[in-house]
């Protein structure tokens, strides 16, 4: 039995979800300066939409996944139009907008509780069949799916930011909103876009993971917490840092659970604190950041 590899893959699987949430969180921060505390609840919505679309309506996995991501993006757009943009137009201070995101997170949670009830739901796994033995470790096929789809999604976002015109306007706004406006870029459009992207990424994370664990209206808080911590450790506004830190938090959690039972939570945050002492601006070099601290 290869416990080391077993734990590593378990950590990377959970870390995938944290990475997606951390990336989504850091993208919103880059574009708007807002810390979106509703990020975990968007992942929860992805999981719960999966319960309805994949479970109750028994859609096939791929169309179901696309439907969940599209619905989440629309929710993200509504979030931008109804909450973030009106507050920005009224020149609300950043802290006010951040409190508004907390209100939105509660709204999502209680809303989900109303729609889906209070119970846990098992989401059917898209890949049937039992675990695969790989170098002495037994790997759940869903783990490959989670890590694989996450890798593809991260690559797609990277190409989008670097290569596409829209991605460039987005980076320009993140770097210097006023200069971007002078160049004819509409910051309002960028805000909607980034919230859509960010909601879609979070929902994808929540949806991918639930066949391994469970979906309920209450999973958002813990997922969001780890994701947001990863985004901060990765250097706020730094997408690559967020992703690396997301995987890192997952792996540290898994190894801490294995080696120092009962103290895993404390160990994870102890390690993260040490990282922040050593590199107060996050683990990744600053020049990769989209937004100046």
């Amino acid at each position: 039995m290869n416990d080391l590899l077993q734990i590593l893959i378990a950590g990377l699987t959970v870390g995938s979800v944290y990475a997606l949430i951390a990336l989504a969180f850091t993208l919103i921060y880059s574009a708007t300066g807002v810390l979106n505390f509703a990020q975990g609840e968007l992942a929860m919505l992805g999981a719960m939409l999966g319960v309805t679309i994949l479970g109750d309506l028994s859609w096939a996995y791929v169309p179901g996944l696309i439907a969940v991501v599209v619905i989440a993006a629309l929710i993200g757009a509504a979030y931008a139009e109804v909450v973030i943009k009106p507050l920005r137009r009224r020149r609300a201070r950043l802290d006010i907008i951040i409190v508004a995101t907390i209100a939105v997170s509660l709204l999502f949670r209680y809303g989900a509780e109303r729609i889906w009830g209070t119970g846990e739901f098992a989401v059917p796994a898209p890949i049937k069949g039992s675990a695969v033995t790989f170098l002495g470790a037994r790997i759940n096929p869903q783990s490959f799916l989670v890590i694989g789809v996450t890798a593809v999604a991260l690559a797609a976002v990277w190409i989008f930011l670097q290569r596409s015109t829209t991605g460039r306007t987005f980076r320009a706004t993140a770097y210097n909103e006023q200069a971007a406006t002078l160049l004819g870029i509409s910051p309002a459009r960028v805000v909607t876009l980034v919230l859509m992207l960010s909601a879609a990424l979070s929902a994808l994370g929540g949806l991918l993971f639930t066949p391994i664990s469970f979906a309920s209206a209450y999973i958002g808080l813990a997922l969001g917490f780890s994701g947001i911590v990863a985004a901060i450790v990765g250097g706020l506004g730094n997408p690559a840092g967020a992703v690396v830190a997301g995987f890192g938090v997952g792996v540290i959690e898994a190894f801490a659970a294995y080696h120092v039972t009962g103290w895993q939570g404390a160990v994870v945050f102890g390690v993260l604190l040490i990282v922040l002492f050593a590199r107060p601006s996050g683990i990744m070099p600053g020049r990769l950041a989209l937004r100046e601290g």
Partner: protein
Amino acid sequence: MQPARRVRATVAILLSIILLAAACGDDGDEGVTASPDNNGAAGQDSTDGGCEGKSGEIKIGYVGTLSGPASFLGEAPLRGAELAVKELNDAGGVEGFTFSIVSQDDELDPAKGVAAAQRLVSQDQVDVVVGAAHSGVSQAMTEVTEQAGVPQISPLSALNPLTDPVKPYFFRFWNKDAVIADTLAEFSIENFDSVGLLYETTAFGQGGKDALTAAFEEHGEQLVAAEAFDLTAQDLTPQLSKLRSAGAEGIIVQSQGPQAALTARNLEQLGYDARIIGHPGLAQQGFPTLAQGAAEGSIVIDGLDRDKEATQEFIEAYEAEYGEEPFSFYPATGYDIVHLIGEALTNVDCDVDKLRDGMEAVDGFQGVVGRDSAEISYGSDDHDGHGADALIFKEIRDGQLVPFEG
């Protein structure tokens, strides 16, 4: 204007002082108990007259978790209690006394439980409080019931200190942790060569770990590993890998249904064929449902012996009322408690104000929960309900609890 205002202010302050003084006086006064209805007064007039000529209604205040992910904890005993009330009232009540239930949601929050108990005692003026399931909530509620002098009976709370030392007004119906841990240890040692523990990092999980470690040592054995996890954990692979390395063939899960289901699924994914051994908290529908087949063969402590006549009658009545069989003994706790209250009432010649004394006089009560031999006897220094006779090992087959066969 100015002097008039000053006068009014002075009057207001004086009134406040008088009210405060009155309130403080009330605190020490025994008059703030719950049942100032006519029955109590009538009872005092004829202390030795038995139940003859008395009638009225026993108001039961029920506190349990009725919302959120743990709502089964409150809903199941309440369903049983409501069934018992309906049956008893249809048959004319107990010695001319009928029953009614007012229920309150504690949201699994001790502060909400206290507020609920307070409301039931002072606004609804209930004669007895039933609740809560969760030990932390029950403990917090005793503050109110002790103060008000209203008996409180918890259907499921198992925390040892709840009844040690004895609180005059608090009674538990179910087993305490020490007995459960001992029974679990004995069973595990008898049926498995090596046993590990998986526990949640909460007071409940930690307490269970300490009790089980001690119980194993008492039997001259040891747990091969004890692994902890946070309730928010989404994956238990690390903990289970550790238990597998330690060679555990049976794993005692000290947690709740969803976490047990996660354990079962992770075990299946790991291809690790250890059996789950669960305390009574796992005897809930959510465990097999969420495990999606992976819970088959898991062992769980239940409180129902389906060969017992009273139990069969209860299951039949429950099915007729709710259209489904009870999954485990949870609903039966509420059912039995209502009958217990009826017995307590007759023990004190239907003097509702003495219900607490009637509870202490309960001797050899037999209900639905437990084996044929299981009974509850309270006393002035014993407020513990059932003992090991009510702990019945079951295993999950086709998603249902069936007697353990090995």
